[in-house]
């Protein structure tokens, strides 16, 4: 609410103007700065968002490596969320945080399954979700996931009708503590078992080539091309 008592007179208009004219601050100082920025912000920040705030000449990527190892094993950890970084409490201390625990809205079984299908098969169309679940995606399911900002629209599929696709978001990764979509549990096994392939029903020979090329398979396999 108020400034902490030992704050110096806040007359540092644009620090970026003066000290950075000559050289970037030392790495330890860059680490401090990033620590403060990430600490102040509740949402993950990308490398470029962090760099924007630092004086010119800083190497945010390198400072982050140091900062990350410094927080290793501590009560608060530096985690990676997609292309972004955030400070989060260590999961093993969850039991201490009873009072902070948020009552999250219970997701329906349909919503949970739909979310999982989108995460594992992304980018995926509504028709593909329905094909996998064997049932129509009911009203409000997609709506609810969009509202939670766990999914967003991807690129339209280049197949007849050009259907919209869905992909998971950074907020999804943040919520489930995932560094990237390729860290989804069991993803590799599912891929190897061929369970993430788009396999059209036998007899439908017109689409498979097109679809395989642009389909869910490519989406997730892209993630593995290192």
């Amino acid at each position, binding site marked *: 609410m108020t400034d902490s008592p030992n704050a110096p007179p806040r007359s540092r208009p644009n620090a970026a103007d003066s000290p950075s004219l000559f050289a970037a601050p030392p790495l330890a100082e860059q680490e401090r700065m990033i620590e403060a920025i990430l*600490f102040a912000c509740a949402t993950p920040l990308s490398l470029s968002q962090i760099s924007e705030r630092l004086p010119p000449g800083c190497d945010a990527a390198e400072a982050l490596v140091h900062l990350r190892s410094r927080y290793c094993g501590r009560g608060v950890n530096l985690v990676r969320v997609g292309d972004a970084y955030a400070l989060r409490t260590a999961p093993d201390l969850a039991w201490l945080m009873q009072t902070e625990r948020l009552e999250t809205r219970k997701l329906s079984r349909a919503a949970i399954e739909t979310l999982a299908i989108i995460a594992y098969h992304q980018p995926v169309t509504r028709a593909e979700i329905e094909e996998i679940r064997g049932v129509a995606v009911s009203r409000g399911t997609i709506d609810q996931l969009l509202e939670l900002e766990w999914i967003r629209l991807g690129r339209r599929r280049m197949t007849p009708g050009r259907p919209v696709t869905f992909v998971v978001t950074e907020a999804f990764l943040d919520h489930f503590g995932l560094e990237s979509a390729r860290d989804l549990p069991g993803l590799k096994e599912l891929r190897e078992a061929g369970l993430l392939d788009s396999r059209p029903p*036998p007899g439908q020979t017109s689409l498979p080539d097109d679809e395989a090329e642009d389909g869910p398979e490519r989406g997730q396999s892209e993630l593995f091309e290192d």
Partner: protein
Amino acid sequence: MADTFDTDDSISARREAEALIVDVDGFEGPLDVLLTLSRTQKVDLRRISVLHLAEQYLGFVERARALRIELAADYLVMAAWLAYLKSRLLLPPDPTEEGPSGAELAAHLAFQLERLQAMREAAARLMGRDQKGRDFFARGAPEALAVNRKTVFEASLLDLMRAYARLRTRDEFRPYAFDRSDIYPYEAALARLSKLVPGAADWTSLQAYLPEGWRGAPARQRSAIASTFAATLELAKQGQIELRQSDTFAPLHLRRKTGQ
């Protein structure tokens, strides 16, 4: 029914069977039912006996119908498809027939079931992960630091889509109207004709009643004739005018109905 074998197994089995019958809506569609059936069969989904499964499924639909539960079309489609698949599997393959074999269809069904099961498990594992706000936490008091106030306008994609949906919905309820200038509306023709009828004591050609500016260009004239003709029919029906046509395609004449 005196059932002397009330072991735990049979109780849970019966409860499950009951659930299948009574709680059709509890299932997430026909594939879900199949998955449940295949699980009670306790077989490897890869080697699932489609024949056995089809029989169980048809039995499910049969029992459900006996309870007069309305079955969703999806279930009946699946039942029909399973019956078809069963027949394909029982009959020796016809080499002249085109299309996928019974074995291919069965393999695909097994794939679908396995995939659905895998997604269920993946969903469970996903939800079992540490979750933000439950197992790990963001900064509880994000700092309000600078006094540098800047207003950011928030709008989500959902807001945007809803706004557009709202607008388009309103459009759907708006009475449909042509804004093309070459269309002479029926309502206008009826209003105009109603006003002119009291003066029409003698037989007059329909052409004479076309409004100014609607007699030249063929498209405009066609529209005006059509609307005016429709208006004459309405007025004739109401008993206000009489119509006369000497021959097919001959000019149409009208006059005020006399003796009223």
